[in-house]
């Protein structure tokens, strides 16, 4: 049992760290740059994508045995489009303001490469449980990616976090942060941060290996 739990945990954590869709695979950049002007937008976009990802991967995995490979792309797209439509209606029912803020990017989840990529590369090869766990990890990883951009851009560009004012009335917003170039700046900064971390880790491992060899 504990071995199975550990395997599930690995499956889940893959999308959050080792294969993070935003910072490692650099997938789904279109919504990442476009809707992350505020933390709320980023969070709802991330959650919507995650829900579509989990449901689609579950259904793709359930139907994998009787899906001939010749028609698999059509099947994946129909499945993904279905869950995107359902999420689209759900968001309209929850809040029209949020729906307007996210705009066409809700419908564009259909062509989000993270989802089609996961369906093709993972869900079509494994049983529903691991497929959905992996999809959940990827979804959470993507949400974390969007939030890292959204939080930074909202703090600098509007002086607020989740709509709560942080610096008071005297704050002069750094407007470029909520414009498209701001998305690139913040994404670049985060990529720099993560690659520095990665390099430092590699150097440490190399030093350790050399030390043990010398010893």
């Amino acid at each position, binding site marked *: 049992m504990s071995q199975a739990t550990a395997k599930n945990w690995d499956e889940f954590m893959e999308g959050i760290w080792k294969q993070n869709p935003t910072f490692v695979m650099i997938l789904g950049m279109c919504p990442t740059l476009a809707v992350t002007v505020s933390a709320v937008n980023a969070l709802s976009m991330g959650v919507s994508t995650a829900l579509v990802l989990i449901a689609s991967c579950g*259904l793709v995995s359930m*139907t994998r045995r*009787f*899906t*001939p*490979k*010749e*028609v698999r792309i*059509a*099947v994946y797209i*129909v*499945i993904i*489009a*279905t*869950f995107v*439509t*359902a999420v689209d*209606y*759900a968001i*309209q*029912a*929850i*809040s*029209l*303001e949020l729906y*307007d803020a996210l705009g066409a990017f809700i419908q564009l989840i259909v062509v989000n490469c993270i989802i089609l990529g996961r369906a093709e590369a993972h869900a079509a090869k494994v049983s529903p449980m691991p497929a959905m766990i992996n999809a959940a990890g990827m979804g959470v990883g993507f949400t974390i990616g969007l939030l890292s951009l959204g939080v930074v851009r909202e703090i600098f*560009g509007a002086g607020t976090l989740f709509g709560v004012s942080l610096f008071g009335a005297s704050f002069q*917003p750094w*407007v470029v942060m*909520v*414009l498209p170039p701001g998305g690139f700046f913040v994404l670049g900064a985060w990529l720099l941060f993560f690659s520095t971390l990665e390099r430092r880790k590699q150097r440490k491992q190399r030093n350790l290996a050399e030390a043990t060899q010398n010893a």
Partner: protein
Amino acid sequence: MNSQAILPQTTPAAAMIRTLGLISAICGLIIVAAYQLTYDAVQENKRIAVERAVFKVVPAAKSIVEYAALPTGGVEKIGAGGSAPAGALKFYAGYDKDGGLAGIAAEGAAKGYADTVRVLFAYDLATSSISAFSVVAMRETPGIGDKILVDKEFLANFPLEAKVSADLKVLANAIVTVKHGTKTKPWEVDAISGATITSRAVGKAINDAAQALVPSVVPNLDKLKEKP
């Protein structure tokens, strides 16, 4: 048998059609279920959004009724869930708590700097003027174009005169946006310096809609006075 020996991996057409058909049927069911389950909530949200927008520009209003200003000059009540007839302009009559007419509001749109600027403006019948406006949707540059909502000098343009002409066909004076600091007439909109294009869009959106709305509404005031 022979063909099978050459192409042992051929997928039968029936299997492909069966899979696609089955998947489409399942997906169809999911979509229809999602639509029906959310329909009431979505409609309610839309109604609240319209109401909230109208109450913002007509502060005295407590309830609204949707009307259509017909191109022939009349006004017609739109039933719940109905839409305005072709060529007609939809507007909202806001009624106060006693059921008296508090003001009317209509939507206008014009091309701004980045995309279409859609505004909702209130027309005050007592003073024949545009008393206020709000933005329904815009993608203008933050910090520049979106100043139309906060710039004190720009907001001082309202109330904006919009009297109907003697023959009840058009506005007596078309609403025009003029360069910052050159406003001389009560029907001119003083643009924000640096955001002229967005200011002009607001003026044009209001003018285009008011040209259609005001001449239809003014002769039919009696029909609108009491809440139906």
